[in-house]
């Protein structure tokens, strides 16, 4: 490919939106409109003739490089099959506090954990594991959080009372810890039902 076509390829790849032909001209002031059009044609042909997984199309008000439709299904499938993400240790701790203390406000959770939990609450809300259940008294009437039905479902609980009481916790931990040996639960499917299997200890990985 000629160097203008390479430049256009790089720009189209890096741009978050389709780029109209006039804007592409800004990339190289020395190139004429005709030269740009020719380079775009060269790029398109290269993708088509040479056999690429992507193609150059003009749509949405400009030029863009798109994945060829025949591959989208495989890519989407692969994304779903990617190892399920896990909650970070910090998120789990906040979730635990909310489960046991609901309804509870952000300030109180932050106080128990010793760090701000704004971002964590946001992500737990987005995942549908907690929700705003009430407003507290006092200044600004803070939002109070509680767990959702999805929370119960994810942890295979029928109701909140099924959570062990704090004084039973040590026993519950011993029980669930006993069948832990592999901390790499490369589960092909989410399978939250299989509750007390891989404790994964605190190898809890990066949040999504």
């Amino acid at each position, binding site marked *: 490919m000629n160097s203008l076509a390479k430049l256009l390829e*790089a720009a189209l*790849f*890096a*741009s*978050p*939106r389709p780029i109209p032909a006039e804007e592409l001209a800004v990339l190289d002031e020395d190139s004429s409109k005709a030269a740009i059009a020719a380079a775009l044609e060269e790029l398109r042909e290269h993708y088509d003739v040479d056999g690429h997984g992507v193609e150059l199309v003009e749509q*949405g008000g400009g030029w*863009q490089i*798109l*994945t060829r*439709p025949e591959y*989208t299904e495989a*890519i*989407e499938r692969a*994304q*779903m099959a*990617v*190892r*399920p*993400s*896990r909650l970070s*240790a910090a998120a*789990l*701790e906040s*979730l*635990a*506090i909310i*489960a*046991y203390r609901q309804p509870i406000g952000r300030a109180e959770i932050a*106080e*128990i*954990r*010793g760090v701000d939990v704004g971002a964590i609450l946001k992500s737990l809300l*987005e*995942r549908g594991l907690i929700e705003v259940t009430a407003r507290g008294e006092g200044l600004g009437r803070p939002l109070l959080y509680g767990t959702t039905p999805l929370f119960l479902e*994810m*942890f*295979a609980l029928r109701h909140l009372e099924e959570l062990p009481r*704090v004084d039973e*916790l*040590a026993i*519950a*931990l011993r029980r*669930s*810890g006993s069948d*832990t040996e592999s901390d790499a*639960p490369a589960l092909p*499917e989410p*399978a*939250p039902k*299989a*509750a*007390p*299997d*891989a*404790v*994964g200890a*605190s190898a*809890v990985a990066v949040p*999504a």
Partner: protein
Amino acid sequence: MTSPRPDTRAGEPQATFVVELAAFNGPLDLLLSLIRDEKLDIYDIPIARICEQFLARMHELALNDAAEYLEMAARLLRIKALMLLPRHESDEGWEDPRAELVRRLLEYQQMREVVDLLERRGEDRRNRFARAWSPTLMAPPQAPLALSLAELLVAVDRVLRAVKKPGMHDVVPRALDVDGAIAIVKAVLALRATARWRDVVRADAEPWEVLSALLALLELAKRSELKLAQPRPFSDVEIRRELAGEAA
């Protein structure tokens, strides 16, 4: 190594950008740059000279109020003083007062080397764009979550361990017990003429106990029932029974 001065690489200001106001990234950076400028041997730093220059640069750069620089200045002065103390050839246990400083400087210098490496690699990466947009796939669905009850319970346990008392949010204000502490101090001094701080305060004392003991000591000193002395800075405080006070 490239220049340690951030102004050569300060880059463009950005929202989350940490602006470094001082010309140096801290006292160790300044010290290292002095050593380099003067081509000194890091293992045999002429401490009097470097100390003088450090103070001069601090003044020049208007760093006189920066706690970190002040602390380093104090440290240098102390090392300088220790170097002046006479010592005997046979003094086996003598340790070069500069040793700790040299260790920290070497450690800092190694870290600077890593910074240079990160800087080169980071600059290289900054010059390449990744794919910014994936139009054929709508916002990818969030990857499913892998959760287990056991994990949650372990988290509960961690929280409980981190917070000794779960009811930490309703802290009961604990009044100081100065009278109790006075009784303890008096009891200790009844047994021996001199005592140390450790003798009147438990090693695992809670803040209110420490404060109570401190106030008790000051109170008793005021009443001339004991005398407090600290022979050297940072050394243990000596608590001595004052006979005059007892007589009074």
